[in-house]
């Protein structure tokens, strides 16, 4: 039985194709202006990577910001449920999941069975979301993926005075004008990011193990900062790209939905 999961986010779109509980192929693209187009392209990419035809997918679940605009899915499921499911599959001991998206962040708690018991989200304020890092990386003139590498080299991280992304930009410009080394500014940015995430996670209440999903989970600087602030070790996700958690969860839910049906 071949199933699919498609996660259309604000910045990136992800798709996963699974067969009998194994990932056959996955794809990640930058989202286009129209969610429907993003979904088509990313699903075609995942099928090509998996070496299967689109028509071979028996059931496909859509999730993410643009989930209601995906023409080909059989069902849609919330991002919370999909991220919980995907993260749990990659880290079976996970009870708390921190997911940072392009313009939101979520903290999700699971019970021993993997059912979502509680969650908190922020999609009102750019601070603490992927957008914050994007804006800051642009100011520093570095790629989003370089922020983490830069920051781990820092000896004297700066402290941003402001949480608001707009005001923090002014802080960063001042540091740049004063000739502060880029790595120290990058570290300050990642620390600020982690600080905002920690507020959300503390509101939820932490239960071990904790893991992080989403693109920001690939930023080593943010990972180190959040471990320090929360005083714990995050369980690393190594099985797959942590940014695929939502799409993976969608595919796993697609598998559940067809279980008991045609094998």
């Amino acid at each position, binding site marked *: 039985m071949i199933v699919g999961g498609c996660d259309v986010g604000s910045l990136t779109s992800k798709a996963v194709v699974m067969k009998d509980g194994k990932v056959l192929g996955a794809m990640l693209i930058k989202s286009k*202006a129209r969610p429907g187009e993003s979904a088509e392209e990313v699903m075609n990419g995942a099928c090509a990577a998996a070496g299967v035809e689109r028509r071979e997918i028996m059931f496909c679940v859509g999730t993410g910001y643009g989930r209601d605009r995906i023409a080909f899915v059989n069902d849609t499921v919330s991002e919370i449920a999909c991220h919980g499911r995907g993260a749990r599959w990659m880290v079976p001991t996970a009870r708390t999941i921190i997911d940072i998206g392009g*313009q939101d962040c979520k903290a999700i708690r699971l019970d021993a069975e993997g059912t979502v018991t509680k969650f908190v989200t922020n999609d*009102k*304020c*750019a601070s603490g979301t992927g*957008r*914050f890092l994007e*804006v800051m990386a642009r100011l520093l003139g570095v790629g989003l993926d370089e922020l983490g590498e830069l920051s781990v080299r820092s000896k004297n991280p700066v402290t941003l005075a*402001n*949480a*608001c*992304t*707009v*005001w923090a930009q002014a802080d960063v410009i001042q540091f740049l004008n004063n000739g502060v080394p880029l790595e120290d500014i990058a570290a300050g940015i990642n620390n600020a990011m982690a600080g905002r995430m920690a507020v959300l996670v503390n509101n939820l209440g932490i239960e071990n193990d904790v893991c992080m999903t989403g693109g920001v989970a690939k930023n080593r600087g943010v990972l180190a900062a959040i471990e320090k602030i929360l005083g714990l070790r995050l369980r690393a996700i190594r099985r797959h790209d942590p940014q695929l958690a939502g799409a993976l969860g969608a595919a796993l839910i697609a598998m559940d939905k067809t279980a008991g049906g045609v094998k």
Partner: protein
Amino acid sequence: MITAGCDVGSLTAKAVILADGRIAGRSVVRCGTSPEKSAEEAMGAALDQAGIRLDRVSRTVGTGYGRARIPFAQAIESEIACHARGAIWRVPSARTVVDIGGQDAKAIRMAADGRVVQYSYNDKCASGTGRFLEVIAEALEVPLWEMGDIAARSTERLSLSNQCVIFAETEIISLVNEGRETADIINALHHAVARRAASLAKGIGVEQSVVMSGGVARNRGMFAALGEALGCALLELDDPQINGALGAALMALDALSATGRAAGGGDGAGVAGI
């Protein structure tokens, strides 16, 4: 008796020269990198306009973000107190002031003598401050000071779903790409900023009359939008951008009058109705 008030804000510095109970000179200058220089420039311009030399000013009160760095001020007062003092002098029936500045927003409720009863303040989040307007003006490539006139041509009511400046900027770019009219977009922006500032005022309880101060009050669209968001008519404040500096000059005068009455221990409110 000549007193002065100098309000060094984040974007502009303002000065007012008060001579015998009337405004003899006023100025607004764009801030440079040094608050000291901005203060001196604003004060110099106001003194020139009044035709008065600095050594004839009996007392100067400083206020605003850069108030601690005004070289010629004898005392400093909070922006909250100065805005309340200025507003009640201009509009004696005023009980609530909503001030939208370049980097903050304040709502102040006051007693009949201008004493501050309660206030709330936002300088943590750019939404609901003048910076919101500035960021979007840049994105739309329209001059900040023309936004009010442009919004007046709006024919369709749009609504922004994002309160965060960063997210709203993206939303506005999508509206532009959809072919929406700039006038309609700016009008929607005014209502978004006004909603945010109004929620600050509602938090402390709005008592009429309500006046709007700060540079943003010169934007007619913002003035109308704030009135709508508060659900009451706003009273106009003459020259709203210098209200803080005016309040500072009045407080300088209050202090001198109190000293003048000395031994009896004046209540400092004796000049409320000049």
